[in-house]
Structure formats: structure tokens, C-alpha cells
């Protein structure tokens, strides 16, 4: 009786211009998770609030959320690892429950980004890199990932079209995910049409259509001990494996540019802890902040050999009916990427898939799901493996 489960998941719709404050935004994901878990606020022993700082006027949001959500006087604290904040929150919740300190923990992720311009946002996200030695050159997230795309294209012959195919797949599922920001289909041809916004240059070789967009959103996970999971939940989803790693923030400290070392390391740890292999994964959510990121993830997680990620997308193997469905909720590319809420949204999708409750996004009878969530440019990486009974 010492397993740890996820017994409730929730998220707000991911939108531009959320018409409320961050505490009100957090309430949306929290309410859905509590209703999903069929528990009340007094059942929660501690809360972990996750986001990337710099976007909010509010310092220390965990106190404000605890008050607004009725989570006082239980302990609450803030945790951040950029875009991987909520899955790092899951790791922390797991350890709080596993240690016996708490038997039910809420992981709340949020980000409200749309009050500032895209250029300002790029500057802030850019400061998640090395501000002393890199930011003075004028860096931003798309440019860093573009360097990985360039290196992958050069070494393995991955093409712009291969990357565009990732966006086309993403849009296929964005259309059926009612929480997604982008719900329209994307045609492959739009990437080769110079008049179409999708083909607009951002940072070579990446185009507008290769990049995910800022959004406002919140997510929430309710993590519980086996005993509490048994008493509260009909369909607990078990945490089978967790991996996490970090890498040099400055690109000068990186050994590879054709993959993310943190994803490989976190994946190996998670597979080992779960006692499974990549081929055992039935459905996955990967951190497709850019189209190239999804191709790198296929390879880093062992779904494809190095250099062969492009063959998975070309062969539609990562579609819902394929051999390894990936991001069948539209991924970051279609859902939008409210940084601190993203990991929780990915985990929510896998939990719903494993419970058979993913609606139009449902893959056939999955038993094991995987979540790959990256912070910064492969600065932080987490891989979480979940399973049903």
C-alpha cells in the first residue's frame, strides 16, 4: 500500500486575454480537478503552486491562491522550473505523499501571459536562459530551438516539410480539444505559401507555424496515497516512473544539438523506475513547444532511433491510430503554452486517456502513458510514466 496515484485532473481553457486575475484563473483548473476527484478542499493536505515567474505583479502567488481556494492553513509553496514547472510539481507531490508527510497534495499550475506583448514575452522567456552571457546577444526561445533544428537537419536530413507535418497533426487534434487555443485545421501547403502567416520567418529555419503561442491557462492535479486513492477514486491512475534532469544553461556547455540530453536522461530514469521499455508506451504527451521539439522527443524517448524521428511523423505512426500516438490533444502547438500550466495539462490528457475518458481524443485501450515536459531549451527535463490498474 505505498503506491502514489493521481485521482483528479483539471484545466481551464487555454486562451488569449483571460478576463480575470490569476487567482480566478487558478480557480478554474482547481474546481475541475476537485470535482473530478470528488473530494472537498479540506481533504487536501498541502498545495504546490507552479509557474514561471516574471509574468505577474504578484510575488509569491502560493499564499494568494491558498487563501482564494480555501487551502489555508495547510502548507503551500511555490515551485518553478520554467515550462516544466507542473511536472516537477508532480515529482514533488509524489515525494511528499511517498514520504508520508501528506496523503493528498494539490499541484496547481498557471500562467497569465497575454497582458504583455509577444516581443516582451520573448524577452522575459529569453531571460530563462543565461542572462549574463547569452541574453546580451539578443536571444529568444525560438532562436535556441532553431539551432537544434538546424543541427538536426544538417546531420539527419530532416526537412522543413517533416517539421510542418508535426503542426498538421497537432491541428488535427486541436480541432477536437475544446480546451485548445487553436481549433482550426492547418494545411501543409500553408507552410510553402509565402502569403500565409504560417510560413512567416521567425528564426531560421523555424517559421510561425513551427512555434507554439503564448496563452493564459491553469491546470491542477490531485495526488494521493494508495489508501486515499482507494477510498476516493474509482479509477486511480498510478505514478509508475518519474525521471528528471538538468543541463548547462549556456549553450556553450552542451554536448549535443541534435537532441536534448535532459530528455534522454529523464526518460531512462523513468523507464527504469517503471520497469518498462519505450515500446510499452501506449500513448504519449511530449513537449512540442516547436515542431522540431516533437521530432527530437520521438528520438530522445526511444520511440525512434536518432535521426529517424521524421519517419514516425511521415508514416503517421504518431497519429491516434498509429503505433505510438503522440499529442493527440493538439499538444502545445494547438493548445497554446501557458508555461506553468502546460505540464499539468499534458498529465491531465494522459490521465483521461488511461481512464478511457478522452472523448474524441481517445486512443484505443491504453494501459501505459508517458509525459515528456521540458523547461527552457532542454535546461530542465522531466519524464513521467503513468498507468492504470
Amino acid at each position, binding site marked *: 500500500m505505498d503506491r502514489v496515484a493521481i485521482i483528479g485532473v483539471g484545466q481551464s481553457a487555454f486562451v488569449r486575454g483571460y478576463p480575470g486575475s490569476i487567482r480566478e484563473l487558478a480557480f478554474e483548473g482547481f474546481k475541475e480537478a476537485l470535482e473530478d476527484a470528488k473530494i472537498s478542499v479540506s481533504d487536501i493536505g498541502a498545495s504546490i503552486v507552479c509557474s514561471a515567474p516574471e509574468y505577474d505583479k504578484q510575488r509569491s502567488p502560493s499564499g494568494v491562491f491558498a487563501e482564494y481556494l480555501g487551502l489555508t492553513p495547510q502548507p503551500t509553496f511555490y515551485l518553478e522550473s520554467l515550462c516544466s514547472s507542473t511536472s516537477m510539481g508532480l515529482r514533488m507531490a509524489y515525494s511528499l505523499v511517498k514520504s508520508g508527510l501528506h496523503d493528498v497534495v494539490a499541484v496547481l499550475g498557471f500562467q497569465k501571459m497575454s497582458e504583455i506583448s509577444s516581443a516582451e514575452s520573448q524577452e522575459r522567456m529569453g531571460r530563462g536562459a543565461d542572462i549574463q552571457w547569452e*541574453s546580451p546577444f539578443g536571444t529568444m526561445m*525560438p532562436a535556441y530551438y532553431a539551432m537544434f533544428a538546424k543541427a538536426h537537419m544538417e546531420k539527419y536530413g530532416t526537412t522543413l516539410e517533416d517539421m510542418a507535418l508535426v503542426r498538421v497533426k497537432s491541428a488535427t487534434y486541436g480541432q477536437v480539444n475544446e480546451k485548445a487555443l487553436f481549433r482550426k485545421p492547418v494545411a501543409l501547403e500553408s507552410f510553402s505559401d509565402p502569403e500565409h502567416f504560417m510560413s512567416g*520567418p521567425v528564426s531560421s529555419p523555424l517559421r510561425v507555424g513551427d512555434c507554439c503561442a503564448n496563452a493564459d491557462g491553469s491546470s491542477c492535479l490531485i495526488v494521493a496515497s494508495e489508501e486515499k486513492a482507494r477510498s476516493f477514486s474509482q479509477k486511480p491512475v498510478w505514478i509508475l516512473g518519474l525521471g528528471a534532469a538538468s543541463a548547462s544553461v549556456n549553450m556553450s556547455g552542451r554536448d549535443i544539438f541534435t537532441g536534448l540530453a535532459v530528455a534522454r536522461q529523464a526518460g531512462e530514469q523513468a523507464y527504469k523506475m517503471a520497469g518498462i521499455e519505450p515500446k510499452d508506451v501506449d500513448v504519449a504527451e511530449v513537449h512540442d513547444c516547436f515542431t522540431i521539439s516533437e521530432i527530437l522527443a520521438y528520438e530522445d524517448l526511444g520511440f525512434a532511433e536518432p535521426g529517424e524521428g521524421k519517419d514516425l511523423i511521415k508514416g503517421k505512426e504518431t497519429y491516434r491510430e498509429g503505433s505510438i500516438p503522440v499529442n493527440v490533444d493538439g499538444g502545445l502547438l494547438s493548445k497554446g503554452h501557458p508555461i506553468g500550466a502546460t505540464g499539468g495539462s499534458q498529465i491531465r490528457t494522459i490521465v483521461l486517456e488511461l481512464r478511457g475518458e478522452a472523448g474524441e481524443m481517445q486512443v484505443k485501450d491504453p494501459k501505459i502513458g508517458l509525459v515528456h515536459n521540458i523547461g527552457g531549451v532542454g535546461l530542465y527535463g522531466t519524464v513521467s510514466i503513468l498507468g492504470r490498474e
Partner: protein
Amino acid sequence: MSKKKEIDDRFKRFGTVSFTSVTKVNDFIDQLDQGKVMGNRCVECGMVFFPPRADCYKCLASNMEWFEIKGTGKLVTYSKLKFAPVGFEDDLPYSIAVVDFGDCKIFGRIASDIPDEDVQIGMAMKTAANKLPSGQLNYVFTKA
């Protein structure tokens, strides 16, 4: 009347916009001003660092010596930006890159006078100190 304590904020001259002003490796800026791009090395254990740093994590010593980045490296990867963060709009377009010098890799910008078609992964490049029109300092990668 006590004299105001002088703050050594030389690092504010680094790059188009510097986000740091005070660091123990501020001498990097004077050397850059004199046309030299410098890394440093731990005197105690020999670890080589770029970017330079004040402290060695390997042996925990803080006794470092400067060395000049010389010779040629290989272009590992790059990207040309068509969109810039706030404060860098006037520099567009510009390319960021990583060059491998063997002992260390260096992140920086590619010199703006190299035509796009001449930039190839694997090409030989050197590092050169560079003065920006604003008087700020950085370094760029030039053709070797």
C-alpha cells in the same frame, strides 16, 4: 563627508543590452575593449572555462587565470533571427551561433558581414572582439 563607494559595473557594457552590471569577472570587459576575447582557467586544477567564471566547481578554488581564445573553431549550429526580443529590434536581422574550439565551446553572434550563403555548419571560424555603434562591446564569429 564620506565618499560614495565606487561600484564596479563594467559588465553593463556587454552586448546590445546587458542584464548584469556587477560580476567578479569584469576584467573580461576591459580585455574585450582591447580586442581580446578571453576565457579563464583554474590555476589549482586546470579546468578551462568559457564563459569565464570566478569560481571552480571542480576543486572549489577561486584562483583563475585568463587566456585568450585564439585559433579556429568549427561552427556547430546557428540560427538567423527575423524577430527580436524587446531592446534588440535595431540589430535585426542577426545570427546567433555556437562554435567549438576544442577546449571549449562559445556561444555568440556571427559577424553580420558574412553572406548567408557562406555560412555552413562545420565551417572554420574565429572569435573577434567587436564594438557596437552604441559603444557597447560584444564578440562575433568571423570566417577563419
